């Protein structure tokens, strides 16, 4: 890393000096009150709000920077008054905050043309629509033109400031972009920064970055061919670019700090079987490795022919302890998407939405997280309402299937009358939205809805325990089980221990329970097959949980896997929190057994690896092999964590949730929670020393 990059990291990340330029928070409802009074249409509100924010922005340029733009406005005003929003919610399904979020736009739609040419194009469409007497469409296009002008005006203020402050590089770049299409790498990065910044100012959120290494590569290649950059200087520029993602991220909406969806996808199969991984992909991995920041979040598309070197670089990144790269397996995801009806060329172009849901850039207005099935609740319902009438395990299985169907009936019914707030700016980067003068919030080429599926391990483990003890061994009476669950195992210690620790658990490579999990996932997918949503799209089944692993855990009493009432479910596609698995290989084998092409809404298996397995070059290669084995065995999505001090401290406080946490101590591995406290402390102490 160069001194320049180090200085920038100190300025923006360590000292957060740019925060001092921020304006005070404002009343978020001030604009909405005016809109409401004057009865302004929603798309106009969105455009006016964005222009209002952009107009308020004052240029701040930092010494020596080449890529500029920073937020000083801290409050993005609401579109609606509280009363208006409440009224909307009575008649519509409002998803999360209501704004378009969690999709991937096609940045090239504005990058390739530049704003001036885009305005000309919009004006032409406007004239056509006016000629046809379609004033509404012409008006909508006018909103988009106004926004582009406001962005240009802001950037012009930046350009003048750059000149005044003696920053010729920024001034020169802004003399070209965003008005014109970028001609070199620096202009392309600045252009991206402007587009991304404007999306956030539109209150669109979880603004994913998409296949950056594909759409920016031509600029890099051209500049390198011209000798403008070599490997190191290109890397330095990319690092400056990466830091920009972290300047304003604390202002972005999200569940937790860092939950902002700034996900970047690298590599991936082309339709002809070649790999699109290129020099820029590698530079992005290196940049992320060096700056070691949580944004952008790196995702890597891999497949059976991905070279070991790529996995090795990914493993180096995992070693940083940031929890990425996340690996997506093309060999499973692409066929899965095609099975769902995505066109082949689109499926090959997939990326991830904010976290891990697979989505097509510029074409999909999919709402990938519109709801979530609770597998655990389905099992619980079947136990409480029907188990006593079941003569065989098969009967019980049918009851669970029925409970899944009923939940999905309800979920797909409840998401009707979806209303998404318009975003004229974002729509400029979605397919055909400009030509059709149609806001992306109303739909695009793909309009599918995704359901997560939480608690798969809890459900499968519960069913396995019932199959084994109630139906096969007949050592457990149905009523005894139901009563114990109702009483949260109060007074049933022996039963609790048996269910919790002795019953077969998913994650141990035991077909008995893994096949039940595969069946549940299949039931989920089959139940959604043939259903359509009101936008003409389909429903996608997934293995993710998002925050539902917490919410769904609150909804259910104790479960037959020995889980207490109130105890958590595992996040995403992972073993239950208290099942003690034999190791990462058994976990991988268990979790790659189901046909994951069926549940391709996404949701990763998460593996925790102790940081000492990253200790030597040789052992890192073995971690890389472990990742490759997941891909070869047909896993769809994988996230690895190098376990760090924070995890260990939490494990000390809640040992019951960390039975699988293995720590390598001194030439040996042990379960962290089994060590005496002083030794636990010692290992935690050691973590503080890890650089």
């Amino acid at each position, binding site marked *: 890393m160069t001194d320049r990059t180090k200085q920038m990291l100190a300025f923006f990340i360590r000292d957060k000096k740019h925060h001092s330029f921020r304006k005070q928070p404002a009343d978020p409802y001030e604009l909405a009150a005016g809109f409401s009074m004057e009865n302004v249409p929603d798309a106009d509100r969105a455009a006016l709000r964005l222009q209002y924010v952009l107009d308020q922005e004052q240029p701040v340029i930092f010494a020596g920077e080449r890529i500029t733009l920073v937020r000083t406005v801290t409050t993005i005003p609401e579109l609606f008054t509280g009363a208006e929003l409440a009224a909307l919610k009575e008649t519509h399904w409002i998803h999360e905050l209501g704004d378009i979020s969690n999709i991937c736009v096609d940045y090239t739609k504005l990058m390739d043309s530049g704003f001036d040419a885009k305005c000309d194009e919009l004006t032409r469409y406007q004239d056509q629509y006016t000629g046809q007497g379609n004033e509404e469409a012409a008006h909508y296009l006018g909103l988009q033109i106004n926004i582009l002008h406001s962005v240009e005006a802001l950037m012009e203020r930046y350009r003048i400031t750059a000149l005044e402050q003696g920053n010729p590089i920024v001034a020169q770049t802004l003399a070209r972009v965003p008005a014109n299409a970028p001609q070199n790498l620096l202009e392309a990065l600045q252009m991206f920064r402007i587009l991304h910044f404007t999306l956030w100012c539109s209150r669109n959120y979880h603004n994913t970055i998409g296949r950056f290494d594909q759409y920016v590569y031509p600029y890099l290649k051209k500049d390198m061919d011209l000798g403008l950059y070599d490997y190191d200087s290109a890397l330095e520029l990319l690092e400056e670019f990466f830091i920009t993602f972290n300047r304003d991220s604390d202002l972005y909406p999200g569940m937790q700090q860092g939950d902002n969806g700034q996900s970047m996808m690298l590599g991936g199969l082309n339709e002809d079987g070649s790999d699109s991984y290129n020099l820029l992909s590698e530079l992005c991995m290196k940049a992320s490795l060096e700056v070691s920041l949580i944004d952008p979040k790196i995702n890597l598309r891999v497949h059976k022919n991905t070279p070991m070197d790529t996995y090795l670089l990914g493993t180096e990144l995992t070693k940083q302890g940031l929890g990425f790269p996340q690996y997506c397996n093309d060999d499973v995801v692409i066929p899965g998407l095609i099975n769902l009806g995505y066109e082949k060329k689109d499926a090959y172009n997939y990326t991830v939405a904010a976290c891990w849901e697979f989505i097509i850039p510029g074409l999909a207005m999919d709402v990938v997280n519109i709801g979530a099935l609770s597998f655990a609740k389905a099992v619980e319902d079947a136990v409480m309402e029907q188990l006593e009438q079941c003569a065989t395990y098969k009967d019980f299985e049918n009851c669970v299937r029925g409970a899944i169907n009923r939940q999905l009936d309800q979920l797909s019914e409840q998401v009707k009358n979806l209303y998404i707030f318009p975003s004229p700016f974002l729509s400029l980067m979605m397919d055909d939205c400009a030509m059709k003068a149609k806001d992306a919030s109303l739909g695009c080429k793909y309009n599918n809805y995704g359901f997560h599926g939480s608690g798969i391990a809890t459900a499968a483990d519960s069913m396995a325990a019932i199959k084994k003890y109630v139906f096969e061994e007949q050592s457990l009476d149905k009523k005894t089980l139901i009563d114990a669950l109702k009483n949260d195992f109060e007074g049933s210690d022996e039963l609790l221990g048996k269910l919790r620790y002795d019953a077969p658990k998913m994650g141990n490579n035991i077909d008995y329970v893994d096949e039940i999990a595969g069946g549940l996932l299949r039931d989920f997918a089959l139940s959604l097959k043939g259903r359509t949503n009101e936008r003409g799209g389909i429903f996608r089944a997934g293995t993710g949980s998002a925050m539902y692993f917490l919410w769904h855990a609150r909804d259910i009493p104790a479960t037959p896997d020995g889980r207490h009432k109130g105890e958590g479910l595992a996040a995403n596609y992972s073993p239950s929190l208290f099942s003690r698995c034999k190791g990462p290989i058994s976990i991988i084998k268990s979790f790659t057994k189901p046909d994951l092409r069926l549940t391709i809404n996404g949701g990763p298996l998460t593996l925790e690896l102790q940081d000492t397995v990253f200790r*030597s070059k040789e052992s890192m290669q*073995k971690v890389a092999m*472990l990742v490759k084995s997941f891909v070869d065995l047909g896993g769809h999505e994988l996230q690895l964590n190098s376990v760090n001090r924070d995890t260990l401290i939490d494990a000390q406080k809640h*040992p*019951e949730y960390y039975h699988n946490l293995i720590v390598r101590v*001194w030439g040996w591995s042990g379960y962290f929670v089994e060590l005496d406290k002083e030794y636990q402390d010692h290992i935690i102490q050691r973590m503080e020393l890890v650089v």
Partner: protein
Amino acid sequence: MNQKGLIFDIKEFAVFDGPGIRQTVFFKGCPLRCNWCHNPEGLQNVPELMVSSASCIHCGKCTDVCVHESCTACGDCVNVCPLRLRRIAGTWMTSKELADSIHENSDYYEHCGGGVTFSGGEPLMQAEFLTEVLQLLPDVHKAMETSGFTDSRTFKTVISHLDYVLMDIKIFDNDLHMKYTGASNEMILQNAKILCAGDTPFVIRIPVIPGVNDNERNFRQTAEWIAGAKALEKIELLPYHKTAGAKYSSVGRAYEPLFDIDKEISISGRIFEEYNIRSSVL
């Protein structure tokens, strides 16, 4: 073919026990009593009760069920513990049972350039059983982590079935070896010579113990002893870590090393370079 062996653990994803990704089988029972041993449950050649007390809620169920004066590792208290904090370390397995268990995932390990490693305790303490197991695994890459403490005939027999050996030369000086491990290193050094004369790739490991063997004389004598061996891959230095004593209380023993655990360790790979031996620190 009906030997039984006592196994106290089979670990997945071992990355420091030989080439590739490996599964490591831990044999219970060891002839040495090294001061720095971190696997106290591997020492005795009988099953033992292990209790992890860190999250014990002191419900008393384990004592209620117990009918013995002193522990016989009968296991009655294991399943009454509501948190399953007790287990019996040590399972008797037939050679076929162990080989079958290894075969369950051996394809996976082969795919990852690895295989199985037999460790302990001391696998050579159950040499007949080990040999039977090795013979049942012709298609698996087999390694052994050993102290080398056995007679030469046994040693030769076992290594003839192995693809890779990791062997300790803990302390070169015999008096010190006696003091800190409770045994002479004569057989160990002779067996090291057998490895040096053979074709089986091997690694020599030195647990580096502060104030005990972390000196130039020890490193130099060890290097001289094995220098020039054609199948020697490298010397691995395993610096002592204070967490070595972590599991003693769970087997009801005290950890009482005869050396100063707080003393700083001195390591230099330079000495090994002089003898053209590659070295690394684990």
